């Protein structure tokens, strides 16, 4: 019980910190929402009037606590840029980003476990060398570039999809899935590369342990040893790693949504930052932080389930 209380307190602490940081960030970077909205031709008085209306002329702490108290009640206010409630804007975009994350994480899990095992099965073999080379190379490609490469290859050369033909899940779920596969793949590729590498290290470490020797000496086939004995133990550190990957996937989706023209949270974040749409940015930051923290919490629990040696520390 104490464990959960402690977790919840630290969650609240982080959320508070992140909101404070975002607020400070917006004090530090130049530009403001009123100016961005009214643009080049606006008269001085018009900008002043809008600043007043948006609450820029209140004192800093007042503005921060205004926002905080709203956020606690679940009300993130109104977007400067769109003049719509922030929660509406977010709600419309969440399915896209969540869908993208789920598909890419599925891809990571489904593809990296067999590849990782294949590598460690024959360390130094042809398959291992090729996979190592390819994964290492893929890890070095920046996300925006990988996105363009995938669009060119699958969209223009192979014509497996039409770039930019995103369909909302409510309209046609099949087409939605079909389109999402490609951006999800772009996010998954570098993570698959990392997971394969990580899993390989983990399996190799396990293989050196005594219980493997015992299992082998009992006449179990190499394949059986790998799948039944080693994999389960080797996966334990991978689970923690996957927790980090999920945070990365969320961050990665920002760039990929841009390249693939997906109307998700990431693109909203970019446009909100560049328009100094403070309420929207705060809301998205809180959302990303909550997801990351909750995922980490689940990872902790899973960790304990898979490996009973781990105690929940209090």
């Amino acid at each position, binding site marked *: 019980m104490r464990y959960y209380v402690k977790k919840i307190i630290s969650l609240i602490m982080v959320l508070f910190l992140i909101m404070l940081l975002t607020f400070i960030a917006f004090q530090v970077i130049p530009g403001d929402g009123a100016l961005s909205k009214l643009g080049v031709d606006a008269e001085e008085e018009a900008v002043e009037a809008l600043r007043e209306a948006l609450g820029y002329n209140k004192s800093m702490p007042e503005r921060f606590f205004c926002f905080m108290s709203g956020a606690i009640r679940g009300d993130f206010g109104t977007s400067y840029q769109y*003049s719509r409630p922030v929660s509406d804007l977010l709600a419309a975009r969440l399915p896209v980003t969540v869908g993208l994350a789920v598909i890419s994480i599925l891809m990571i899990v489904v593809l990296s476990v067999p590849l990782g095992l294949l590598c460690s099965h024959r360390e130094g073999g042809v398959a291992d060398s090729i996979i190592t080379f390819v994964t290492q190379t893929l890890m070095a490609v920046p996300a925006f570039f990988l996105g363009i490469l995938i669009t060119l290859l699958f969209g223009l050369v192979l014509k497996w999809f039409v770039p930019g033909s995103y369909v909302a899940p409510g309209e046609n779920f099949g087409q939605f899935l079909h389109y999402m596969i490609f951006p999800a793949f772009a996010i998954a590729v570098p993570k698959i590369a990392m997971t394969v590498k990580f899993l390989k290290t983990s399996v190799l470490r396990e293989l050196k342990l005594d219980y493997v020797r015992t299992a082998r000496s009992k006449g179990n086939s190499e394949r059986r040893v790998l799948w039944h004995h080693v994999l389960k133990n080797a996966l334990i550190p991978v689970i923690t790693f996957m927790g980090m990957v999920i945070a990365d996937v969320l961050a990665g989706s920002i760039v990929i949504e841009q390249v693939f023209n997906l109307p998700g949270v990431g693109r909203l974040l970019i446009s909100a930052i560049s328009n100094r749409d403070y309420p929207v940015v705060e809301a998205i930051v809180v959302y990303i932080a909550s997801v990351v923290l909750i995922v980490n919490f689940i990872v902790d629990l899973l960790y304990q389930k898979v490996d009973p040696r781990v105690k929940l520390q209090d």
Partner: protein
Amino acid sequence: MKKHGKILLALLLVLGVMVLGGCSKNENSSDNPQSGGVDGADTATGEPVMGGSIIVGITQDLDSLDPHKAQAAGTDEVLYNIFEGVVKPDKDGNLVPAVASKVDISEDGMTYTFTLRENVKFHNGQLVTAEDVVYSLKRCAGLLENPDPEIKVSSALSGISDITASTDASGNPTVTLTLSEANTELLGYLTCAIIPKDYDKQADAPVGTGPFKFVSYTPLQSFVIEKNADYYGTAPYLDRVTFKISADTDAAFLELLAGGIDIFPYLTSEQASQLTEDFNIEVGTMNLVQALFLNNAQKPFDDIRVRRAMCHAINRQEILDIVADGKGTIIGSNMFAGFAKYFNDEVTNTYPYDVEKAKALLKEAGYPDGFSMTITVPSNYQFHVDTAQVIVEQLKAVGIRAEIKLIEWASWLSDVYRGREYQSTIIGLDANLAPSDVIKRYRSNASSNFVNYVNEEFDRIYSLAVAETKDDAKTAYYKQLQELLAKDAASVYIQDPACYVAVSKKLSGYTFYPVYVQDMSKVYFVK
């Protein structure tokens, strides 16, 4: 339409108004080797087919669906299809009657009287009344009792003291504007949308009088409109148009290659040259003044000799060759070539490219070894960033060490434009519907005078120009103003950039406007 012809002519005679800002057709586009085919409506390759739907790519999300709150040019050009003002711009840059059928401007330039067109209906079926027009104009001019701070009131409109509804001798409803000071160029600002008086959902489900009706809008995704069958003028050919919002030009370009977009404006010359297979590339001009703006209040640019040296040191033709394959129009002052009536071509070559002269001027100003400077460029405009890179190279020849500093657009607005804390910057300035709008920022005390240009002579001539009612005198004043800017080397004026639009070969009728307009009512499928 014929019966309005006379009025139109009268308007042109009185004002000679030419609207500016968007992408207009290049007069000599025949020198474009990449262009595969049709050139606007003149060279339509087939018979128009009624019906069909198309996808048009845009790269800016709409900032508001309420036409009075929309500030971005990218929003205006889309909303043009749904909304109309009392007058609206046509493709030649004239203002033609729209919701009003007739405009009378009193000789002293103090009152404007609009006679409303009969039987104009809003998209919700209601007839447009004089009250709706008064409400709309008042809302635009900030004259309602509780003005909404999100509505940007143009300074020109703030000269309106009263707007009233009445009827003329033959019983037609009219609307009269009374000004507090004479302004003969106000009509250019009166394209603001006419909207129903008691309708408060404009931002979610906009209602106007234009050739298309609103269907749906999904932020960051799409804006859909459909044909307005009840339109009083020529009805559009297309049934439905989807404006698809792409993250940036690069993403949109990939969609173009894949055939996901039928029309895309604002391509780079490089991209346009890759699309000739499935698209006709139409070339126009952007109607922008692209310049290396110098902060006249900061060292070393407070010295006219240094500014003149900069002008001599920069090779504008080479800039065009490197960043735009030689396309674009070189300018020498703050006016675009497309504004032919007012454009003063004599000042274009005030400062020919001359390294030796530049060096001599610098030496005279006390910088025999040049100096270091910073060029601040908004990072979202690759075109300006590329221009800056060429300029940095060119300035090396006269010993000036320039450094580029990229900043975000929002930071540019607050630091450079508002704060005027910069040495030099590259940007393209557009303008509204009047010649005064192009040049008014150079008045010594103008709040938009971010180059800190101060010249009493300029201020004097400017006020004469705006109040002048005689056309040729007005033109002469505006030419004189450009001369002053050139003589003082207020900044290094570079070019009016070329503009490329990709139009699917299945379509025809795409029309360039000299303002920010994507007119879909003229586009049609060919047989």
